[in-house]
């Protein structure tokens, strides 16, 4: 078939040798011609497998068809029926394990580049049309408070505003976006895009209160007693884990959260124009193998480090980072010390990191998670010369809200317990979703949880009973 001869179209991007020292976005995105060519690879399956892989069930063949026909804004609108933040998801979703892994073209060839097409449509719409909010229904008389302005909170806020509720978001930081603003770097997700999405939510009438640390500034109970009819908790997974090895409090050792927050939120990469400093490093070790580790390593490079290594205790196949990000990191010259575990960080007499002692690992029997457990190789210890260490081994749940909210139950890891179908917590009128419930996960899952919560909060505030099991199933099947 002629169609299959067209290869998966690459996205033009900055050359590695250029981009490794700047903070501009790495890919330039498809041109309309490339997008149409790529879209023409889709065979418009009758029973599209790709939709099954999408956590929010975007009608993929429909939007791809619109791109093929040249109706790019129509394509963006089609995506937005299911996903309010396509410019963000097109950039950060792990499509290779969601929609694209299911694409039938992928059986023999490379799958349709769904993520790149999503990104193209969203960017085209943003740059070429006035995005106007839909006409809003009249005010229901109900008010909702959203705690946390990350993807989960923004989704709930947008959905509830579209249903006619008055919505206020309370955000601890001085800017909106959660991890999208403080965590994911500019070169992967330009902040102007996050701002555009937040502006859209504001156009829907949502008010955002910054510098509002709920639990301290105001408690959840105070929100409920001060006129909010329901509360959504989308506070994210913001409690950095450390390795608990000697030397971790030396100067030059950062959590990835701190390192990325300094650079992204506080713009330390533009010091001294911006006042927040960050370590000026020569040799950086980043501990961990996830997206956050890749972001930290690539940030270190752009901040001017000579040598940056990812130190990960398992092998490449177990690395949780997106394949594309690992590939990008490698192209930029990041080194990988795999099957390696740090045991101690050593410092000089001024309290600065000077090296790190590591041990080599090998993969043993599978553990509870099914992954082969790394075991230390006796006698393989060695020292790495480093002046900066970024610990990027995951985040736990921030206890501030649970600690100050009587009646709100958490599990043994401190995550808030919420019903999968309704996002309801143990406290009446209080709902929760995103990383604070499921642990550090993905943007799209946080948004999915936000949608579920918005529906349930709407019912709760309006006194509409929950649908029965059979009704709920009817709704689900009528969607596709």
């Amino acid at each position, binding site marked *: 078939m002629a169609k299959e001869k067209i290869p998966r179209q690459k996205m033009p991007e900055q050359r590695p040798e250029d981009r490794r020292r700047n903070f501009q976005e790495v890919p330039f995105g498809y041109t309309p011609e490339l997008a149409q060519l790529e879209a023409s690879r889709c065979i418009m399956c009758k029973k599209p497998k790709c939709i099954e892989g999408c956590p929010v069930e975007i009608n993929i063949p429909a939007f791809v068809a619109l791109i093929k026909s040249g109706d790019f804004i129509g394509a963006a609108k089609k995506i937005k029926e299911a996903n309010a933040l396509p410019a963000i998801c097109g950039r950060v979703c792990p499509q290779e394990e969601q929609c694209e892994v299911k694409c039938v073209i992928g059986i023999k060839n490379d799958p349709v580049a769904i993520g790149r097409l999503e990104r193209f449509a969203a960017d085209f719409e943003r740059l070429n049309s006035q995005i106007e909010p839909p006409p809003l229904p009249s005010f229901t008389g109900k008010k909702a408070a959203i705690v946390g302005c990350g993807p989960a909170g923004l989704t709930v806020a947008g959905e509830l505003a579209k249903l006619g509720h008055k919505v206020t978001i309370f955000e601890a930081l001085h800017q909106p976006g959660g991890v999208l603003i403080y965590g994911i770097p500019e070169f992967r997700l330009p902040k102007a895009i996050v701002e555009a999405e937040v502006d859209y939510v504001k156009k829907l009438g949502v008010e955002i209160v910054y510098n509002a640390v709920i639990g301290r500034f105001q408690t959840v109970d105070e929100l409920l007693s001060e006129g909010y009819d329901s509360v959504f908790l989308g506070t994210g997974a913001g409690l950095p884990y450390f390795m608990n090895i000697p030397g971790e409090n030396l100067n030059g050792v950062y*959590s990835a959260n701190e390192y990325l927050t300094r650079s992204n939120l*506080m713009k330390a990469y533009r010091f001294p*124009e911006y*006042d*927040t400093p960050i370590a000026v490093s020569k040799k950086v070790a980043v501990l961990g193998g996830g997206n956050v580790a890749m972001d930290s390593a690539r940030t270190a490079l752009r901040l001017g480090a000579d040598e940056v290594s990812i130190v990960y205790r398992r092998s490449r196949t177990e690395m949780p980072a997106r394949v594309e990000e690992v590939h990008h990191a490698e192209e930029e010259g990041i080194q990988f010390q795999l099957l390696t575990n740090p045991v101690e960080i050593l410092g000089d007499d*001024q*309290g600065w990191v000077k090296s790190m002692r590591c041990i080599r690992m090998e993969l043993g029997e599978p553990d509870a998670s099914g992954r082969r457990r790394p075991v230390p190789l006796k006698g393989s210890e060695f020292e790495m010369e480093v002046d900066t260490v970024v610990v990027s081994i995951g985040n736990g749940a921030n206890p501030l809200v649970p600690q100050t909210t009587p009646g709100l139950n958490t599990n043994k890891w401190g995550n808030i317990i919420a019903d999968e179908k309704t996002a309801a917590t143990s406290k009446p009128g209080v709902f929760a979703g995103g990383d604070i419930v499921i642990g550090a996960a993905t943007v799209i899952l946080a948004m999915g949880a936000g949608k579920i919560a918005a529906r349930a909060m709407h019912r709760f505030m309006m006194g509409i009973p929950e649908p029965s099991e059979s009704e709920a199933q009817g709704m689900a099947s009528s969607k596709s």
Partner: protein
Amino acid sequence: MNEIIYKKVLAESVKELRVVAPRIAKARKAGQFVIVRANETGERIPLTIADADPKAGTLTLIFQEVGKSTLLLGSLEVGDSIQDVVGPLGKPTHVEEFGTVVCMGGGIGVAPMHPIAKAMKAAGNKVIAIIGARNKDLLIMEDRMKAASTELHVSTDDGTYGVHGFVTTILQSIIDSGEKINLVVAIGPVPMMNASCKLTAKFDLPTVVSLNPIMVDGTGMCGACRVTVGGKTRFVCVDGPEFDGHQVDFVELVKRQRAYLKQEDQSRQEFLQHPDKRCFETAT
């Protein structure tokens, strides 16, 4: 945006600002702090709440101009606004009727001590306040501390006012006098807190200190503020700022506070050399 409605120079390079922040003024308790960001390009720095007026909806912030961020704050005038004020952060001081509480404030540490002394006194304690500074001109809040305590002692390092010596000199003589002390609270520069804790440890006096490491978010998200207390890593912004002084690793704290000395100096120099850019330089 939080408007400044009052400004006073308390001593050379020590400034007092009263800013509008009604929610925080209402919610805050003794021992808590705020994080402020002076302007769009500013960094986030923690400042203890020296006092609050819930009726007027204002907070009193007292700080010493050391680096660019505090110089910038100090250059703001009545009618100007601080871009961001976040709080109240940290755990409040544990206040109850202990009996006799010694409240020691060294240098700028008198400011955070003030609300604690006030709260301790209101809870029925005998509050012996000891405040000190390098010299007479640098001593702050003497009147307010007098009102907040049962008895007030003053020391200066150079003897220009009060007892010639350190706050610990006075503490030693109070201990020697046989006064029964139930709790000591010490706030000030790290060497002062360290010396106070060494002294109280000898007499087994429970001692609370309030720590001031470098911070970024102030909500437990980044770990910049970590310190070692009793051999364990704690986050000052959420687990503190107050800790058992006998357990704190002060040596590590001092080193961590000095992490950005070079950059701080660069910022400070540029700020002082470009007085025209003082206030709200806008970034491009």
